[in-house]
């Protein structure tokens, strides 16, 4: 058995940058934006110091950075980029091109609010604007989960020919320090072999092909249907690859697991913490799960459902757990203006009429623009969840 890599106390951004270095992409391109900056600054420094072999291509905007990694990926390279907030919005057109071309690009989004009014702090508004762009969307709840998600992301992307975005909460994960294990390149290679796309599937002067050709109404629709079906079908492959990941990265899996005394069930898509017949189940994405788990750890009758894979939407996995109770409280850091929170809408849409009949699902919008989400707020939400009143509420104060 190989000696376990040692734990280090690292900033989240540093942990992600070191993981990317060990994954060894051929091309990195990014434009700095708070709170993503430390990740790409670190990667640029590694390159400048001769510690990393990738090409680091400086870009004049996020649109250019995304286009550069698109081009490099189309030419058959493993690539990496990262962004945040306005940067992701500026990339939006390219984000769709990447999934449309079925390029296995991996990108980190350090989640941040979007303007106006200008705000540089954390929420999920940025990713929610492109959540349906045909990418696999992963959410990390702590540093080790973020590290693990990046390794898994490359495996999924290259196997499925689908781009993968890893969402890490700005500041809460990117700028805080936690104990992390960064797997060595040799260990990563056991799970993630070097990227060798098949001849004839990438741009190559010796065997010219056309990517992104013109599709008339006679064929365009099939490409959309295929992307949708492949994304849905990837749910099973994500589960399988996660099981494979756990076998190779035992210490990393253990460190990513959030400590909890009660029962924990995980299928790679969602994790459920709590009793079999709880009074209320809370559902959340990303680092919110840490605060929630800390709040409910001594409560006997409350469960937490952590969503790790948001696109493709794991409706079946979610329904399996939330139908164990009557009261569901979705806690989320985004709002679809004029509708409700995106996760809430997704959960409701994923339930059959029979399943939905007995459920009292409520939506709590929290932490927009970096507003602190406290244990007191979570306790308030737990108390409110049983009441049958307005289904969407903003919880901003203790």
């Amino acid at each position, binding site marked *: 058995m190989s000696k376990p890599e040692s734990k280090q106390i690292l900033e989240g951004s540093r942990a992600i940058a070191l993981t990317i270095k060990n994954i060894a992409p051929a091309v990195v391109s990014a434009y700095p934006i708070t709170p993503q900056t430390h990740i790409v600054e670190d990667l640029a420094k590694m390159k400048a110091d001769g510690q990393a072999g990738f090409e680091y291509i400086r870009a004049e905007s996020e649109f250019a950075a995304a286009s550069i990694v698109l081009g490099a990926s189309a030419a058959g390279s493993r690539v990496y980029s990262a962004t945040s907030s306005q940067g992701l919005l500026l990339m939006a057109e390219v984000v769709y091109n990447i999934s*449309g*071309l*079925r390029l296995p690009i991996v990108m980190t989004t350090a989640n941040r609010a979007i303007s106006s009014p200008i705000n540089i702090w954390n929420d999920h508004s940025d990713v929610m604007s492109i959540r349906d762009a045909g990418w696999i969307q992963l959410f990390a709840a702590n540093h080790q989960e973020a590290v693990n998600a990046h390794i898994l992301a490359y495996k999924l992307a290259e196997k499925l020919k689908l781009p993968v975005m890893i969402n890490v909460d700005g500041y809460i994960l990117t700028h805080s320090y936690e104990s992390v294990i960064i797997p060595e390149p040799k260990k990563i290679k056991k799970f993630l072999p070097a990227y060798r796309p098949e001849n*004839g*599937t990438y741009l190559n002067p010796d065997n*010219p*092909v*056309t*990517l*992104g*050709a*013109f*599709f*008339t109404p006679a*064929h365009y629709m*099939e*490409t959309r*249907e*295929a992307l949708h*079906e*492949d994304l849905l*079908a990837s749910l099973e492959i994500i589960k399988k690859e996660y099981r494979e990941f756990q076998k190779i990265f035992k210490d990393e899996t253990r460190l990513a697991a959030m400590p909890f005394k009660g029962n924990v069930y995980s299928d790679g898509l969602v994790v459920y913490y709590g009793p079999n017949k709880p009074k209320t189940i809370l559902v959340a994405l990303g680092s919110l799960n840490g605060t929630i788990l800390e709040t409910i750890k001594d409560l006997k009758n409350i469960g937490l459902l952590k969503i790790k894979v948001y696109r493709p939407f794991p409706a079946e996995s979610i329904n399996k757990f939330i139908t164990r109770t009557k009261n569901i409280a979705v806690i989320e850091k985004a709002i679809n203006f004029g509708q409700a929170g995106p996760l809430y809408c997704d959960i409701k849409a994923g339930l059959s009429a029979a399943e939905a009949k007995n459920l009292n699902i409520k939506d709590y919008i929290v932490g927009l623009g970096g507003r602190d989400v406290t244990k007191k707020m979570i306790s308030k939400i737990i108390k409110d969840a049983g009441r049958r009143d307005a289904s969407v509420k903003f919880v901003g104060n203790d």
Partner: protein
Amino acid sequence: MKNEKVSLITKPNTTLANKTGAWRTAKPMTDLLTCIGCSLCAKICPEGCIVMGEISESAANGKKLKPKNKKLKPKTDYNYCKGCGLCTHECLVKAIKMIKDY
């Protein structure tokens, strides 16, 4: 991809299978006897649909060609011409007329 019939990766030039000339509502018709063979239309065609070539007696309706007509003449590819009318507008001797095509 699940639907193997539609591949996102194609060979160069296969986009030509998409005949886009049907988007046209007006068709440029060139009177080759009036045409002086200056090739301006071929140069400004935004779709690259006009190429200069030798004109045959039959294309000139069997009429005897004068020296000015023995130059290379434009040939329009109606499979891709979208009828924008730029050639008609720019023609120095008004040899190109747009006719209804719908």
